[in-house]
């Protein structure tokens, strides 16, 4: 399997990373270099093998559904590039 330039444009869009037109072909080459290398996984017989999703052999922990911390709006907003009061500001979304 390999990616062509259209696929690269598509995944860059999905990943929300702007890719200038002159970066598309080099990126396709780089990704194909990696994909060629990981293609060796196709030769492994995986019939009947369950996927490993966690190496931790314990039930996911549950906790009581209660407020443990809060009231830290100033701290939460402190790193935001643009704010108004306690709101994050983004470019206009609705015309």
């Amino acid at each position, binding site marked *: 399997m390999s990616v062509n330039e259209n696929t690269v444009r598509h995944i860059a869009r999905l990943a929300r*990373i*702007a890719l200038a037109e002159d970066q598309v072909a080099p990126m396709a080459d780089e990704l194909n270099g990696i994909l060629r*290398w990981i293609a060796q996984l196709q030769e492994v017989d995986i019939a009947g093998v369950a996927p490993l999703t966690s190496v931790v052999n314990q039930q996911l922990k549950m906790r009581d559904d209660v407020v443990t911390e809060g009231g830290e709006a100033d*701290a939460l907003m402190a*790193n935001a590039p643009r704010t108004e009061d306690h709101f994050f500001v983004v470019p206009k979304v609705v015309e």
Partner: protein
Amino acid sequence: MPLPSAPTEFTLAEARDALCAKRVSAAELTAACLGAMAEARVLNAFITETPERATEMAAASDRRLAAGEARPLEGIPLAIKDLFCTKDVRTTAGSRILENFVPPYESTVTQNLWDAGAVLLGKTNMDEFAMGSSSETSWFKPVVSPWRARHSNQDVVPGGSSGGSAAAVAANLCLGATGTDTGGSIRQPAALSGIVGMKPTYGRCSRWGVVAFASSLDQAGPMTRTVRDAAILLNAMASVDPKDSTSVNTSVPDYEQGIDHGVKGLRVGVPREYRIEGAPHEIDALWSKGVEWMREQGADIVEVSLPYTKYALSVYYIVAPAEASSNLARYDGVRYGLRATDVHDVVELYEKSRAEGFGAEVRRRILIGTYVLSAGYYDAYYVRAQKIRALIAQDFARAFEHCDVLLTPSTPCSAFALGAKTADPVAMYLNDVFTVTVNLAGLPAISIPAGLTETGLPLGLQVIGKAFDEKLVLRAGHAIEEAAEFRASPARWWAR
């Protein structure tokens, strides 16, 4: 002993004893480290130095010591990888996108260290978002290793991604450091920099407040000059944390206790698949020496097989980018981090902020991750990789039916010149061929400095253990350390 720079040459254990015996004060120790750091700025080991905080913390430790209320790491100056969030101290993950990020909270691991009395010297440089094996992908410029080949002025890499921590420990700028290890990022730089680096069992140290890369693989651990120091640091770093759902409910033993009990009767497995074509002869020779050291100390050597080893890196380069693409979706230019200017709509804000904020390697991995998770490819890549990950974990489970620990080389090569591998991602990825299997299986492992190449650069040996068998890993590591008698240290070419 030359003073005042001598305190920086203490091991962590020696410093602890000297502090308790009042032979040195925390203020003196911290000042000596800060001085060494200032002298070694050419190594670029730190992104942010925190001399004021360090001085305050040291003064507080001296008061505790005077009052007889010393905690386990009282007054010990440490360097912290810039992946651990530190409250009110800039935390960048080596990325432009977090260049000005000041966390309003503290990671659990660092909080544990401060609660034990340790002193923060600064935040260490690293590959951007821990993605790399040379500490060259940092937005804050590459780390330079304190090591150089004999008769050479060529800068070499410290390894990565925890290369700033490795360089700081190797150059005696601190008494110990934290690292994180997703595919080898503690053990590989430890090996290349001639220090000890340990990746504990997945779930042993909390991931809370550690900037996420690949959540099913990431694990924090100690980087030190001796195995005993690693045990002392791990004692404080490890905890059961309700804030991390994968933190395992197993109490933390005393890792230092019993470390020198030796390896008599221990079954040491030697996996035949770790002998790879084209690796330098020195790697194999050191490994054979390590096996001999274990045998001489009374261990039983068992040949074992880990047949799926050769697929581990490929599995890793599907699983880790997939998780990274998901984790790094949070950097959107809105809530924190770099925000692109001159944009017309919100999608353009995301796309431009992320294009400007992420470096080439991070962008590449996000795109690979997005691709292997995208519709039509998820089963062929991601699910297949998870299944082969299960087979790799099974390999270890079978091997451990016949042995107690495994002994392998840490890396397939020694430190290389800056820039030597930056043009070829796959060549860089191969650095982690001996370390990455351990992350996929979630096991503990340690790298011990064990020898030098003909040109005088360090090489390491790796001990791998069963899950939560850190004590045995440390004990076996200590035996290697004793036998190897690694006493080499970098010539201080940066201090003129």
